[in-house]
């Protein structure tokens, strides 16, 4: 089932999401933002390697697979961002000494890929039915040469931009969970971008809600 989110005041590209599209993982989701597309799969809670075991909570492992070639240093640093965001929202203490694996496969990159990874990850974790304290979503903002803020930029817009910021916003109080920036910008611009992202996050959480509601209304 595919749904599309029409954008209102903050301009986001068309969103699409499909959950439980893979049969083997415990939870899976594909997330599409314009032409950027990611598939996420979650395995677990399962047995953990002794060397990675944590005595009071589950070990979360995030793997990001690029479209071609092997994961590089850039993927490693994005893995770290996604992992620490998921760790903060998941209630890992409910599954001590077990492992959770989140695999993110990039299908096509047309900008805002870290945001798309985060959104796909959240939908997959939801699909796996893992207990979470809040949901999160990713929003990318680009500041172009004319100092305009573009939300959810395409690859071409990213290339032209002066600064690029990706935030993870939580659903409870809409605060910033993760931030990843490139390029230089002023404090005022940062605050503007955070405010815009928080506004955009409302639309994304509404999209989450609609897409899950539609899915369950069909199942019942």
């Amino acid at each position, binding site marked *: 089932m595919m749904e599309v989110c029409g954008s209102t005041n903050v301009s986001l590209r068309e969103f699409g999401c499909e959950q439980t599209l893979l049969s083997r993982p415990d939870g899976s989701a594909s997330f599409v933002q314009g032409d950027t597309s990611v598939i996420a799969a979650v395995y677990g809670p399962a047995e953990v390697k002794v060397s990675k075991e944590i005595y009071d909570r589950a070990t979360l492992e995030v793997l990001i697979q690029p479209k071609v070639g092997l994961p590089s240093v850039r993927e*490693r640093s994005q893995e770290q*961002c996604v992992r620490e965001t998921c760790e903060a929202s998941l209630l890992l203490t409910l599954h001590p000494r077990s492992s959770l694996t989140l695999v993110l496969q990039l299908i096509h990159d047309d900008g805002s890929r870290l945001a798309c990874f985060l959104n796909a990850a959240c939908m997959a974790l939801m699909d796996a039915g893992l207990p979470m304290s809040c949901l999160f979503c990713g929003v990318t903002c680009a500041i172009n040469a004319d100092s305009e803020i573009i939300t959810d930029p395409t690859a071409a817009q990213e290339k032209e931009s002066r600064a690029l910021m990706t935030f993870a916003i939580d659903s409870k*109080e809409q*605060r*910033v*969970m*993760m*931030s990843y920036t490139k390029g*230089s910008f002023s404090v005022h611009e940062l605050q503007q971008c*955070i405010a815009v992202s928080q506004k955009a996050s409302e639309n994304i959480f509404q999209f989450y809600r609609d897409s899950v509601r539609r899915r369950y209304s069909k199942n019942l």
Partner: protein
Amino acid sequence: MAAGFKIAEPLEYHRSFLKENCRPDGRELSEFRTTTLNIGSISTADGSALVKVGNTTVMCGIKVELTNPLVEAPGKGFIVPNVDLPPLCSSRFRPGPPGEQAQAASQFIADVIESSEVIQTEDLCIERGKLCWVLYCDMMCVDYDGNVLDACIIALLAALKNTKLPEVTINKDTGSTRTSFCVFDDSILIVDPTAEEEGLSTSHLTVVTDEKERLCVVHKPGGTPLSAEKLQECIGRATARQREIQKLVDKVVHSVKTAQ
């Protein structure tokens, strides 16, 4: 007694200090450890620096080589940063290929160089499309006691100031400094965390500012959410720290020059 309490209940131990607005090592919440800097420590490298932030020690060596520029970017040279966290510096690192933390740190440094435009890669070009410089910046952590990224940036900056290219000299630095913060128990903010504090905290935040007080990087890899006021507080502290470090680097560079 206190030692036993520290081992058995590390989080409670730290909380009892933070309640009184101080930290186990006697610092205030927003106080940095003493930072010492030595440049030109490795005579065989083209530029080098040794930085100590408390116990955390990072060594940076810069090797300069000639190479062909890429066909896509004929007018640009290269800067290749690499952060090494060997088993020597802490028990948390194992021998073998670099772990996630080391790779993420290398990527972070590369992002900082690109965002802050510390060095314009165009300046490293000698003959367009034919010859350019490549700077290999290797940062090696000798002693890991938290806040290793701060130390890496200071070391890199000082080593770059120390680097002289034959014929062409680079000195287009804009100088950037970063400040690390830790969030404790979702609400208490501390700066310049030690390894122990890093392990117990719920979130990390890194702010990089340049000389003109523009932000280059605001890096927060997940963790508990942060409110706008706290973020503002962090940025304010980071700009203050930037001035301190700038002064330190300038002083050391100046003292080296006068000694020569």
